[in-house]
Structure formats: C-alpha cells, structure tokens
C-alpha cells in the first residue's frame, strides 16, 4: 500500500503554488464520493491529494454578463437548491436533485461529477444541452475554456491532462424562449445509477424550432450531444411525424451496452421514448 500525502489549499493562490510544485503528481479531491470508494477498492492509489472541497473561491453559482457560472467545488445539493439555477435552468437543478441521495449530494461536486467522466454522470446531459464550457487550470496558472461537448474523449477519459484541475463551468443564460426538459431513468427512486437519460433545450419561434440541443447520458461511452436529432429539429415545426423520425435517429446516434442495469435493447428503446417525452414536455414549459 502506498502512502498518500495531503494538502488543503485555502485560496486559489495556494492552489496555483501547489500545482506548480507538484504538477503531474496531483490528484484532486473535492467531495470524494467517487474517489474514496476507488481508493478503498484499490482502483486508485494517489500519491498526493489536493483537497479543494473548502475553497470558497471555487464554490459559487452566479449570474454575470449573460452567463451562469458554477464553481467546480459547488456541491450537487447547492445546485439543486440554487435560486439562480431554479430560475434560469430548472432542468439542471432537477437533474442535480436526482443524483445519488441527500447525503451524497451534500458532498459530491459538479466538478467531480464531470471530471470523473462516467458516462452516467448526472449533471452532464443538462450541461451539454445548455452549451456549457468548462474552465481548466494548468500548473503555471494558465486557464483554458473547453466546450463540454469536446471535454469527454472516451470512457472516463477527458481533456484534462495530469496536473490540471477543472475549476468551473459556465453556460449562456438561457433566453426566455428557450424551453428545457430532462428525464433520468433509474431502477429505483433514489440513489440509482442512471440507466438512460435525455436533456433537451429548444429555442422556439412560435411553433418552429429555431435551435435544438439534445443530450443523452448512459447510452454511450461518454455523455453525448445527439447532433443529428438536433439538425432534424432545427427550422422545423415539431409535429408527431417529426418526433417519430427523431426517435429513429437518436437510436442510431447512441451506442448503449448491456449490463446488470439493463440491456442495450431496453436502453435504446427507452432513450427514444424519453426523447419524445422531453421534447413534448419542453414545449409546454420554459427553462
């Protein structure tokens, strides 16, 4: 068993210093709800833990200049209860509320949820549908923005290079005409790993869909945007026939697997069903 070291920076300036000194030896811990079980079962054996869980500078949800910004160390519970999110992007708050259970939500963070990059990450589909970008901090103090849709490269493999830390997420403040909806399919009503999920954000011009963003979770190695479905919807009046087409197309865009939680046939089927349902629901609702 290797011995792990631990540093808890208080301010961003401390974090910069630590990152510069230790570079690729750094493993970030925030809520620890994924990392601690991985350490327990031997999957991960970090040399050095940098604890950002109490960094106030990384824990915020705010609206500024037409965008919403969320600090990476913001807990899922804070997101679920946030007036800013409930006002501007209720489907994101709703998805947060369905992650884990009340206890894990008090520790788990949005940064951890995205950086862990499980295909089942509950905050990813709504954030993808909101055109979110992540902010990444490198050793040396440089930051870069990466669209979330380009952040996930493969199964649990992201744009983060060893030594980098995801520090925040931003997305454009949705218009009043943007309508959103989200559904998570799980095997029970709490603490349920996602079997399939869909998040949609539709910018409507009356009955015509001007812009569509559709994201799916747990049905591919990474959380994805269903680009072909989006193209199908854009510029069109959404009717029953178009919805059927979207259902057929989304099945081609996803690549679910069969595992203990469900077969690929079921995941494929139910993704299409909740796509239809969420588009219909969105059209009666505003984000």
């Amino acid at each position, binding site marked *: 068993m290797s*011995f*792990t*070291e*631990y540093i*808890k920076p208080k301010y961003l300036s401390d974090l910069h210093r630590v990152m510069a000194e230790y570079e690729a030896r750094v493993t970030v*811990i925030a*809520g*620890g*709800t994924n990392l*601690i*079980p991985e*350490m*327990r079962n031997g999957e991960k054996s970090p040399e050095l*833990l940098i*604890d950002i*869980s*109490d960094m106030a500078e990384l824990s915020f949800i705010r609206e500024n200049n037409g965008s919403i910004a969320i600090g990476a160390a913001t807990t899922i*519970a804070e997101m679920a209860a946030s007036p800013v999110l409930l006002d501007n992007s209720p489907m994101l708050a709703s998805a947060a509320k369905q992650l*884990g*259970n*009340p*206890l*894990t939500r*008090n*520790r788990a963070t949005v940064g951890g949820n995205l950086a862990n990059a499980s295909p089942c990450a509950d905050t990813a589909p709504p954030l993808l549908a909101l055109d979110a970008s992540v902010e990444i901090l490198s050793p040396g103090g440089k930051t870069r923005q990466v669209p979330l849709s380009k952040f996930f490269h493969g199964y649990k493999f992201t744009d983060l290079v060893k030594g980098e830390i995801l520090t925040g997420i931003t997305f454009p403040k949705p218009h009043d005409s943007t309508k959103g909806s989200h559904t998570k399919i799980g095997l029970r*009503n*709490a*603490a349920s790993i996602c079997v399939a999920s869909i998040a949609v954000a539709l910018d409507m011009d009356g009955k015509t869909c001007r812009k569509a963003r559709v994201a799916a979770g747990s049905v591919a190695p990474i959380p994805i945007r269903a680009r072909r479905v989006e193209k199908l919807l854009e510029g069109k009046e959404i009717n029953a026939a178009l919805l059927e087409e979207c259902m057929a197309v989304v099945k081609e865009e996803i690549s679910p697997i069969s595992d203990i939680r469900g077969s690929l046939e079921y995941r494929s089927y139910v993704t299409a069903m909740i796509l239809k349902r969420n588009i219909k629901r969105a059209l009666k609702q505003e984000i």
Partner: protein
Amino acid sequence: MKTYPVEIKVNGEWQKAEVTARDTLLDLLRDHFGAFEVKNGCAQGDCGACTVILANKAVNACLTLALQANGKSVTTLKGVGTPDHPHPLQQSFVEHGAIQCGFCTPGMVVSAKALLDNNPAPTRNEIREGISGNLCRCTGYNKIVEAIEDASLSVKNKSRREEDA
C-alpha cells in the same frame, strides 16, 4: 506511514488524533474516538448507517476523509440528545416503535435532525425524500416517517414556546 494531526469537535468536544490521508471520518470516529454509534454498513455511501452532521450538513462519514473534517464540528447520535436531555426525535422514535434492530437508527436520527434543522415542518413526502439516503431493512420506513413527523410538531412547538418566553 505519513500521518497528519486532526482536531475535530465531536458532539461539542474538541478531540485530536493522528491520521493518514486515506483514513475516512468513519475510521477516525470509530477507531480513534470510540464513537461506536457511527455504524459501518457498507463503507461506500450506499446505506447511510454512518450518517453524521459535518458543519451543518448530513453526510456519509465513510465518504469523507478524516482530514476533510479537520477543524470542523461533527455531530453523531450522541450529540443529538441524551437520556437527560433527549431530542424530540429520540423520544418519538421510541414511542412510535420506529426502532427494530436499531442498526440504521443512529444514521436515521441524525439525518432526520439535519432535515428538521433545515425544514422544520416537512411534509411526509419531504420526510421520505430527506431520509432516502438511509436504508432500513426492518421497519418498512412507516413508523420512522411517523416519528419524524410527530417530532417536527414537538420541535415546532418547543421553539415557539422559546420564542414566546
């Protein structure tokens, strides 16, 4: 083995220990501080038996590193109430028959306290939501929900009396 000093206020009393970076708060509470009321049901945050209140939030002690609780206040079942000064929740759990084997009880009562601290008059649905991270295999949750609802009325009345006083 690299160890670090921690100091944690457990149920109102500051306690110290030396821990490794990997020791969880659950390990610390049980193995170093003798807080046996914090139970280990699964060690990975699935069952809630290790629920404690850490700086005003109910969390799984098994999913928190001991070092992450450094300098903070932790409340276990013992900090919720005592035989001399029982919390209405404790009274209510016993009177409603909400305790069978009792293994989930410490975590359940602590979760319920955190719930009532944040939401003093929860609906039954909110109560069920609030304890959805605490598994119970014996009771079917019925009497636990009734006990929490009943206690919330006591707590409300008590704080109203305190306001009036």
